[in-house]
């Protein structure tokens, strides 16, 4: 039965990946054709950053069962690593010299620096369990943005680091979807300057081609999924699973629990650092308030809601939460306003005394709505949108036990 179920899960995951891949491939051309602007593609690239973060945090939380509440710190470390060494920021630092190192080098440096930070934080703290580890990581997540606020001579403090070098993306990465010619074929009105083609994307200023960044993040996500999927099935993946189930038993099996947990932490952090460097490059600006506690929590919500431990699940979770946060919530006020107009409740839209008008009021309670959406989703699917096999069993098993306990209690009564 379990074998059958395992096969069913694999089929389900394969289908999710297939659908996601088709959507990802069709997305840029569709958007360009439908809207004529690449704003949505650029937003999708940003969403991709969060997908990458969720995949990384899933290793820590979903596979190894370590609650990390400061995940954004590693994201920040990756972003700052790239920003410092690929902008003129260090000119005004005590160093008086800036570097402008290439993106392709720095994205891996960012990854390793974040992984190193993970090891340094993890080594003394991974002996802690559960809540204690969560608190330490929470503290670390606060320290890193505070450091960048308070070291303005290095990080620019509240003024952020701007003018970050754009990566030079090879022409093939922009793919057959992008470039002047393709856009011109789809929408001649968008791209009038044919022929003046540089080797990248002539329709957009050099290096700010959102399609290129979009393609880059899609490739990075595919790479991450393959990598993490293999990790999950490896010996290390089984060791993580054992530690999550029962740490003492895992140690009794001969698993070196400290090293294994440290590896989960470092691998999770390296994904975050990788995503951070990409984020710095694609956004061109890195400031401390992009890495606050809210980011850590958002990524955690994506993982839990998508289905802890299931890679396909957390990808969908990340996309759903990103969509809710960045599309549904911002549009909510105007949607509500027009709805009120349709139903003849125009008076609600007018400011009157303490009443700020429906749109304003909706704006104010938008995070309440977000909370409600989260609560509803957790009530409807407590195991996540696409749970992992183990997690699904866990909840089923708990439910069975509860039922049995209830029956016993009824008999006793």
């Amino acid at each position, binding site marked *: 039965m*379990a*074998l059958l179920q395992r096969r069913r899960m694999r089929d389900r995951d394969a289908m999710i990946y297939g659908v996601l891949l088709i959507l990802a491939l069709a997305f840029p051309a569709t958007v360009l054709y439908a809207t004529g602007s690449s704003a949505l593609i650029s937003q999708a690239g940003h969403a991709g950053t969060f997908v990458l973060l969720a995949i990384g945090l899933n290793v820590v939380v979903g596979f190894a069962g370590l609650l990390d509440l400061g995940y954004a710190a590693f994201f920040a470390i990756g972003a700052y690593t790239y920003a410092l060494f690929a902008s003129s920021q260090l000119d005004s630092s005590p160093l008086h010299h800036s570097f402008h190192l290439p993106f392709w080098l720095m994205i891996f440096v960012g990854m390793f620096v974040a992984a190193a930070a993970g090891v340094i934080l993890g080594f003394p703290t991974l002996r802690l369990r559960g809540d204690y580890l969560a608190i330490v990581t929470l503290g670390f997540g606060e320290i890193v943005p505070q450091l960048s606020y308070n070291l303005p001579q290095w990080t620019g403090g509240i003024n952020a680091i701007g003018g970050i070098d754009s990566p030079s993306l090879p022409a093939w990465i922009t793919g057959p979807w992008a470039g002047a010619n393709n856009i011109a074929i789809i929408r001649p009105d968008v791209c009038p300057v044919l022929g003046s083609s540089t080797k990248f994307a002539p329709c957009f200023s050099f290096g700010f081609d959102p399609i290129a960044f979009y393609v880059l993040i899609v490739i990075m996500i595919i790479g991450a999924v393959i990598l993490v999927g293999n990790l999950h099935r490896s010996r290390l993946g*089984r060791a993580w699973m054992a530690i999550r189930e029962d740490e003492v038993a895992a140690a009794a*099996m*001969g*698993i070196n629990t400290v090293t294994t947990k440290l590896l989960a932490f470092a691998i999770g952090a390296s994904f975050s650092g990788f995503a951070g460097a990409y984020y710095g490059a694609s956004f061109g600006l890195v400031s401390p308030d992009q890495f606050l506690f809210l980011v850590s929590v958002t990524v955690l919500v994506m993982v839990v809601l998508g289905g802890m431990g299931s890679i396909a699940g957390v990808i969908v979770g990340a996309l759903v939460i990103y969509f809710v946060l960045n599309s549904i919530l911002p549009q909510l006020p105007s949607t509500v306003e027009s709805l009120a107009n349709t139903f003849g409740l125009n008076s609600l839209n007018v400011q009157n005394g303490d009443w700020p008008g429906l749109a304003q009021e909706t704006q104010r309670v938008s995070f309440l709505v977000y909370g409600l959406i989260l609560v509803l989703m957790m009530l409807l699917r407590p195991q996540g949108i696409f749970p992992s096999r183990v997690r699904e069993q866990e909840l089923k*098993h708990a439910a069975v036990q509860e039922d049995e306990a209830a029956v016993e209690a009824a008999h006793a009564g």
Partner: protein
Amino acid sequence: MAILELESVDAFYGRIQALRGVSIKVDKGEIVALIGSNGAGKTTTLRTISGLMHPHSGTIRFDNHDITRTGPSTIVEMGVCQSPEGRRLFPRMTVVDNLFMGAYTRNDKPGIAADMDRVFTLFPRLKERRTQIAGTLSGGEQQMLAMGRALMARPKLLMLDEPSLGLAPILIETIFSIVREINAQGTPVLLVEQNAYKALEVSHRGYVLETGSIVQTGSGKELLASEDVQKAYLGM
């Protein structure tokens, strides 16, 4: 030929001394029982052997190596395997996956498959339930799985912590006869038990622990016949 030798081992939990000069040894091919009441230090002795805690003083030697300060994962690799108290299965994994976890430190696929067969011959019940989730097994089946999992490491010394705990009498019989069978196949066993009668019955030798020190030792038969042991542990 001693495979395991503890020499005047002292161990502490914080400032509380749990073991006082404990010296025991297990020879190759033996079943040795460690009996004593609650809190006597039986589980602590196992924990110091398996490296989950380290003694304050004294030495532990296994297979001619000093393992006094060695970490648990290395000790498992050397061939000491413990079926811990309370079984500590991986409740959300299947029976087969639990058994595979037991072979975590091993690399030889054919050897692992052979040992899996051996475990299934010893415990036919586990074979019937191979794809079942471990947490849904009955208590006796869980104990069988815990022992089977320990065997998957192909141990040079098998340590069993309270294998009869919470089992029906008929299952206790089965478990102890399997302990004997495992031993007959060549694996020395260190058995920690509150069920002193059963433990001494199957053991070649035994030690009696009381508040952290060894107070009596002898062959299984001698201890069963001893008045002190009968009074204190057998309720005669």
